[in-house]
């Protein structure tokens, strides 16, 4: 019979070691031991670590079985006055056949005696044992006892039983340690599986909280506990606030938020002190305060949860039924350098008597570290998502802005630059915190200075066209940005006046270059009314906004100007058509010549924006756009000039010395710009004969109006491009337009443009300068041209006392146009 019972115990132990997911098996083993010995109670005691040396040595119930499912939970049984304590103290088996017998050597303390008697216990057999775990100082192994209890009706414990129990007590510590390791491992594995599954998916807070609820449930089952809760800080949105993120008993938790800056109960204490905590019996906090506060300095217990009531409700206890043990432990969930949360565990003696031990704290800390990883990962994911969403939003905002500008370009409406600035400031403000002012500077390549062309925000709104602020100083941050082509933050105070006083405010600035390829168009200045320097996010947002706005503003400005010119000149043409009915064809051609490049400019701008959006924009694209702008400007200038000349019969000149250097530079620039605008199919090339131009180095050209000079050269190159024949592989002269300079026999300086193409016959030479005259060849081979180009060149040259010479086309197809200037020797 005894053997059978031992076999049953062995089987229990085997099962426990194989399958234990919680500590309930320990209770089952104690029950089996109890039954093996015909006892009605079996308790596993363990020594409590002493926090301070003078603390009384005492025992607590690690696990117990009492017949009839009765509870037996003691956490502070003194060594002195208890059979088990005495067994440990003496390191000997002790049998007390009648705890009421006053003649006994060991007098059981009255409180314990009463509790045992209440459980109908009179006989006690206790054997000492030693656990594998060390005490709090890490020096001595913790001691304990395995104790059997019988009622007075049962026979006395005998020496054989005492010997057998001693045998059991030898295996119990190992069994307990193994069991704990198994249970811990299984909990650890379960938590890893739960959190691991969560991390594989793209989860929302809701999913995370559900998963943490499951983790809590699993922990509660292991210990067992009636409440396991996880509080975590959403340091992205609500830093400093630790909110309930998981629990298997949510409805019983009233206080769902803690703050790190407030020492608030156990949970708050952990956040402040970043240490785990364990209170054996929460109800006796005041009684144990001295020891508790020695271990956990400054801890105050506030029963803000009304724990007792909740536990009563949770365990379905009547109002008169005694509350079971309430044991608490909690561990910090540590982030990189600070606590990011707390995991809290509350246990009771029901359904199994259990006090949280030091190994439990270690296990809880392990789980906490896994949760820390999971939460940090989730937070990082959220931050990344938010950042991605933010960028997506910024890109989509800019895209929408681009679309709007595109559609406005499409209908040819006047683009309101102010509107564009306002839109972009709004976008900038959304993505660059505190961005209140936006300044836009255009770079004047020729003058090498920055011009403030527009501002928006804080009463500074508007375009600065009349008195633009210019920045030339190379030390200025703006110029430095332009040179380095890199975004740059800086800080300074700016002054502003309100109705009452002059004030200054410390601002931080982000300067972002507007580049097309490597060519600077200007700078955008984002002004933040904050003493904090711009963040990395600010810089990145500025970097994204700058080229977009720059591009659109650049195009809008170009188009606006040309749209205005078109409207103005169309009116002028209409008026002149009324007055000069005989020149309908000329004005119609003029109208077309003006409208076509404006339309082309608009089309090309759209193309440019499309390429910009696709990221395929090139420097050549913008150069072609500027080429079109020049074409519009040349056409409109021609028309103005014509109108002027027709009304006043003279041209107003702004004469100034034209140097060799200037002429050389202008010719090279003009050649490069014009070449871009030539018909690609013809593969034409404009060649500047530098050698010939260098020969005139010793001369100053006669005083001349530089704008008119450019205008004339533009007209000549435009004509040469239009009427040239395509390049031919068999004859190298075709497809080449040559600009050169010559010193004539009388000493005059001559700029010549030569091309091979549509002929000018000798009899047509005189007619070429007639206003509106076009040769048949010209009419049939070009889609644009109004016959005013050469007329204007002649007017201009005549006004400068120079001459236009048209050399009729030679038999080999060469046509030459010469601008002849009277010499002016360098003084």
């Amino acid at each position, binding site marked *: 019979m005894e053997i059978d019972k031992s076999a049953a115990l062995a089987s229990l132990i085997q099962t426990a070691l194989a399958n234990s997911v919680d500590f309930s098996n320990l209770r089952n083993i104690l029950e089996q031991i109890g039954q093996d010995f015909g006892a009605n109670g079996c308790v596993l005691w363990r020594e409590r670590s002493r926090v301070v040396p003078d603390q009384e040595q005492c025992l607590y119930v690690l696990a117990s079985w009492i017949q009839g499912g009765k509870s037996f939970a003691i956490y502070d049984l003194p060594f002195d006055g208890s059979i088990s304590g005495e067994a440990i103290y003496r390191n000997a088996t002790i049998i007390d056949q009648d705890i009421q017998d006053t003649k006994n050597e060991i007098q059981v303390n009255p409180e314990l005696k009463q509790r045992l008697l209440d459980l109908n216990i009179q006989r006690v057999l206790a054997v000492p044992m030693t656990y594998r775990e060390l005490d709090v100082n890490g020096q001595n192994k913790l001691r304990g006892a395995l104790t059997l209890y019988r009622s007075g009706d049962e026979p006395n414990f005998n020496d054989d039983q005492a010997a057998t129990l001693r045998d059991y007590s030898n295996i119990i510590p190992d069994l307990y340690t193994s069991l704990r390791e198994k249970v811990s491992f299984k909990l650890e594995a379960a938590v890893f599986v739960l959190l691991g599954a969560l991390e594989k998916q793209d989860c929302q807070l809701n999913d995370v909280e559900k998963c943490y609820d499951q983790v809590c449930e699993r922990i509660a089952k292991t210990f067992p506990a009636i409440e396991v809760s996880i509080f975590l800080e959403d340091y992205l949105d609500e830093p400093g606030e630790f909110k309930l993120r998981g629990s298997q008993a949510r409805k019983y938790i009233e206080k769902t938020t803690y703050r790190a800056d407030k020492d608030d109960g156990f949970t708050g204490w952990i956040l402040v002190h970043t240490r785990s905590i364990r209170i054996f019996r929460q109800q006796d906090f005041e009684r144990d305060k001295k020891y508790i506060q020695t271990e956990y300095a400054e801890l105050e217990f506030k029963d803000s949860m009304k724990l007792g009531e909740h536990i009563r409700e949770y365990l379905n206890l009547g109002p008169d039924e005694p509350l079971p043990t309430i044991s608490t432990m909690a561990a910090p969930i540590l982030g990189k350098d600070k606590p990011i949360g707390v995991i809290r565990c509350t246990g009771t003696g029901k359904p199994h008597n259990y006090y949280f031990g030091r190994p439990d704290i270690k296990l809880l800390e392990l789980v906490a570290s896994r949760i820390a990883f999971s939460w940090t990962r989730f937070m990082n994911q959220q931050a990344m998502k938010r950042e991605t969403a933010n960028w997506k939003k910024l890109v989509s905002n800019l895209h929408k802005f681009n679309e709007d500008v595109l559609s406005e370009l499409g209908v040819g409406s006047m683009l309101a630059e102010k509107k564009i600035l306002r839109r972009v400031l709004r976008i900038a403000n959304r993505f660059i915190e505190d961005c209140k002012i936006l300044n836009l500077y255009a770079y004047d390549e020729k003058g090498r200075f920055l011009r403030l062309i527009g501002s928006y925000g804080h009463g500074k709104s508007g375009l600065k066209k009349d008195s633009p602020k210019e920045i030339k100083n190379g030390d200025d941050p703006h110029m430095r940005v332009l040179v380095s082509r890199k975004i740059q933050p800086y800080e300074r105070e700016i002054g502003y006046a309100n109705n009452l006083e002059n004030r200054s405010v410390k601002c931080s600035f982000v300067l972002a270059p507007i580049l097309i390829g490597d060519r600077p168009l200007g700078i955008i200045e984002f002004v933040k009314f904050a003493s904090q320097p711009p963040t990395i996010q600010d810089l990145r947002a500025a970097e994204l906004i700058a080229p977009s706005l720059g591009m659109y503003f650049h195009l809008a400005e170009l188009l606006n100007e040309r749209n205005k010119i078109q409207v103005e000149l169309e009116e002028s043409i209409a008026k002149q058509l009324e007055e000069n009915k005989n020149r309908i064809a000329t004005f119609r051609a003029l109208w077309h010549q003006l409208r076509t490049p404006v339309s082309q400019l608009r089309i090309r701008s759209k193309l440019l924006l499309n390429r910009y959006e696709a990221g395929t924009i090139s420097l050549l694209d913008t150069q*072609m756009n500027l080429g079109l702008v020049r074409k519009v400007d040349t056409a409109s200038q021609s028309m103005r000039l014509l109108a002027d000349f027709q009304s006043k019969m003279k041209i107003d000149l702004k004469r100034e010395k034209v140097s060799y250097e200037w002429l050389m530079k202008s010719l090279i620039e003009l050649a490069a710009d014009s070449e871009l605008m030539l018909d690609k199919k013809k593969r034409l090339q404009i060649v500047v004969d530098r050698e010939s131009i260098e020969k005139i180095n010793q001369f100053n050209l006669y005083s001349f109006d530089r704008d008119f000079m450019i205008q004339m050269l533009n007209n000549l190159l435009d004509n040469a491009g239009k009427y040239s*024949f395509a390049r031919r592989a068999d004859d190298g002269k075709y497809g080449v337009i040559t600009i050169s300079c010559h010193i004539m026999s009388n000493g005059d300086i001559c700029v010549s443009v030569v091309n091979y193409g549509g002929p000018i016959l000798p009899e047509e030479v005189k007619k070429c300068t007639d206003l509106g005259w076009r040769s048949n060849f010209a009419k049939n081979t070009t889609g644009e041209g109004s016959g005013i180009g050469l007329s204007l060149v002649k007017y201009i040259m005549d006004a400068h006392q120079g001459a236009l010479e048209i050399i009729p086309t030679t038999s080999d197809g060469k046509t030459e146009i010469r601008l002849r200037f009277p010499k002016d020797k360098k003084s």
Partner: protein
Amino acid sequence: MNIFMLEDDDVWIQTFNEVVMSELKKKEAVELICYDSEHAFMEALLNLPVHPEDVFVLDVMVRWTDPQPEIPQPPLNVMDEGYYRAGLRCQKAIRNKGLKNKVIMLTVLENGDLTEEKRGFDENTKYLNKKEDKQKVIQLIYS
């Protein structure tokens, strides 16, 4: 589907290619065949294999021919009207050939500039300003 285009502005051809053709090609196989002068278009039209689904996109103001040493002699009406109405002449030539294909007159000319001419458009000939959105071009091609 083929799109036969009369256009002498290479900026516009590039734009059409990048903006419109790229969209059309997402839906079906489309080829763009360009003629840069009235003469080139008229010559090609004589032997052009046109399918019913093909579309003509014609600019209105187009030169008679490229500058070249020997230019083909323009007919009298071309001499008379000039290049301003080249696209309209091409549209008439398409119809005179008995082709009923869709013709889109895509031009910088405003509605008011072509009031008279538009009266003569049949139901398969549509006017569209070049500044219109690409979607309108696509809509007209598929209308």
